[in-house]
């Protein structure tokens, strides 16, 4: 036991002696880890964010589908669905995407009457309560340089300009959903989008027993064959799959970078300097066995891995949670033009660390086994022969 610790000590001092040479490998190794960790942390943070939002989402959403195209749903359907056993509140929802010609970006419009559909945190002001009022997300406010007490001009379905008073602004922390969001009263939204009387975008359905959601969905489908019921867990799974896929996709792309890193690690480990080789020869001559030198190399690799891992991880945490993933965000989110400046809730799990370790340390260790052995079997007699 003691011997192992002493060899560890020697390994650390040997690394420190060659710190500038080792710095190169730590930088590259750490960078690789930072990239991979950023991808992992970011996709998981986004998934967490989406899950957080969907907690408040309705148990069941009923859309109408006409020839496979999403269509407005008659509000009367709500009455009949409410009649099903186990169903609570059924309410029509009004929402839609709006292309803003001024800023060339998409906004999400949501109509509310009795409180917000999700847990939305207001930065300042209040939710709209009177006609011609609205509350905007931070991204919208910045893009249109407006805010509480100012106005927001939008073009309605018949090409006329409509002016709204901004009475609230959403907090940045509830980012994904609120950034490009504008909230109106239902009546305003119906008028703006020109939704025909008696129609809604979809229906949100409350189901008392979570286990009954799919049964209710099946019944709705049977009564109204032209509808498509979507359960909350389905949405969650889709998010999960999408985020896992995105992160897996990116990791695959970065596999090339990982391979390059392995080659570098191999090269660094193989190309030990004449001085280092002589030093190992001296160790062998002075009574170090091949096993001892292998252990020395193992500790050196472990120390380099751990240092790089911690540095890379810290860099990734800073990048994702302090700098809002500024370097990766454009690649990974990509579904809305208005997606600047995220603020993710910092979180990291043992599983993420485990996966990250497996993705980075395993290739490093695997590519340094043979070179370490090569160094460890240096013939002690070489020292004698000069």
């Amino acid at each position, binding site marked *: 036991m*003691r*011997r192992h610790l*002493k*060899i560890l*000590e*020697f390994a650390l*001092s040997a690394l420190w*002696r060659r710190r500038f040479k080792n710095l190169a490998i730590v930088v590259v190794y750490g960078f690789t880890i930072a990239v991979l960790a950023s991808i992992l942390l970011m996709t998981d943070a986004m998934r967490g964010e989406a899950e957080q939002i969907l907690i408040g989402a309705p148990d069941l959403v009923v859309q109408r589908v006409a020839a496979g195209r999403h269509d407005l749903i008659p509000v009367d359907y709500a009455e009949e669905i409410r009649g099903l056993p186990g169903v609570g509140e059924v309410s029509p929802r009004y929402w839609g995407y709006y292309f803003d010609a001024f800023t060339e970006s998409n906004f999400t419009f949501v109509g509310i009457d009795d409180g917000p559909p999700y847990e939305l945190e207001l930065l300042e002001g209040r939710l709209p309560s009177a006609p011609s009022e609205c509350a905007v997300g931070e991204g919208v406010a910045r893009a249109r340089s407006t805010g509480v007490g100012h106005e927001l001009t939008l073009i309605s379905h018949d090409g006329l300009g409509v002016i709204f008073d901004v009475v609230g602004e959403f907090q940045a922390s509830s980012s994904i959903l609120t950034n490009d969001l504008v909230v109106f009263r239902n009546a305003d939204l119906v008028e703006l989008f020109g939704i025909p009387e008696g129609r809604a975008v979809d229906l949100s359905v409350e189901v008392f027993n979570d286990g009954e959601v799919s049964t209710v969905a099946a019944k709705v489908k049977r009564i109204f064959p032209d509808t498509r019921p979507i359960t909350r867990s389905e949405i969650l799974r889709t998010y999960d799959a999408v985020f896992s896929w995105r992160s897996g996709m990116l990791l695959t792309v970065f596999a090339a970078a990982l391979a390059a890193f392995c080659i570098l690690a191999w090269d660094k480990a193989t190309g030990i300097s004449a001085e280092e080789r*002589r*030093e190992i020869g*001296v*160790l*062998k*001559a*002075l*009574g*170090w*066995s*091949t*096993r*001892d030198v292998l252990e020395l190399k193992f500790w050196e690799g472990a120390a380099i891995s751990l240092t790089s891992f911690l540095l890379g991880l810290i860099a990734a945490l800073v990048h994702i949670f302090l700098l809002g993933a500024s370097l990766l965000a454009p690649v990974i989110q990509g579904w809305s033009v208005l997606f600047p400046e995220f603020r993710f809730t910092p979180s990291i799990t043992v599983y993420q660390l485990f996966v990250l370790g497996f993705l980075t340390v395993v290739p490093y260790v695997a590519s340094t086994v043979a070179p370490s052995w090569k160094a460890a079997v240096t*013939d*002690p*007699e070489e*020292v*004698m*022969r*000069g």
Partner: protein
Amino acid sequence: MTAGHERFIATDGVSKTYNPRRADPVRAVDTVTMHVDRGEVLVLEGPSGSGKTSLLSLIGCMSRPTAGRIVVDGRDVAKLAESELTMERRQRFGFIFQQFHLVADLPVIENVLVPLYPTELSLREMRRRAHAALGRFALDAKASRKVRTLSGGEQQRVAIARALVNDPQVVVADEPTAHLDRRLAEELLAILEDIHRDGRTVVIATHDPRIFDHPIVDRVLEMRDGRIVGERRR
């Protein structure tokens, strides 16, 4: 102290061939039969290329012979596995190399500690022994200096302290005076005499007459072309 006549190391028809499968194999040691008595000072004398360094590394358990037997303290080491050979080397031998082979960037004390790392000794005990070894050569005050800042003579004494730190039975020195001026060579011989007085066996390979004419030497073996061609006893 005169040498006893107990055989400590004995070789029997030992050969060492380098590049045996190439067209021009080099037979550095050619069927040598010799012995080292316990407690004696033995010199292997010969010009460079005569095979004395190769014989020294065979005796010092640093390499295995191509043929023949080597017995160290009753144990045949010619066929030991590398790890066993390492144990022999660690426990019995102290080495002084021609170019010292110190790690220039390490402090003096760390250099002396190197042979003790792969043992089960505690760090405290290791340091105690290293300080004792350094103290013997008046280097204790410079223990934390980097080796590169020391003079040649001091570096030589660090190398000797390192050779003694594991309390070896045999001290093996390869051309220890090759790069030394007269004064340092004298100093080295004085140290070797001191080591010998501890009761340690000393084996030196050299072609320096200052050594093999020195009174501490018990026996000189002359080597030419990998063979022993003469023996002088004092």
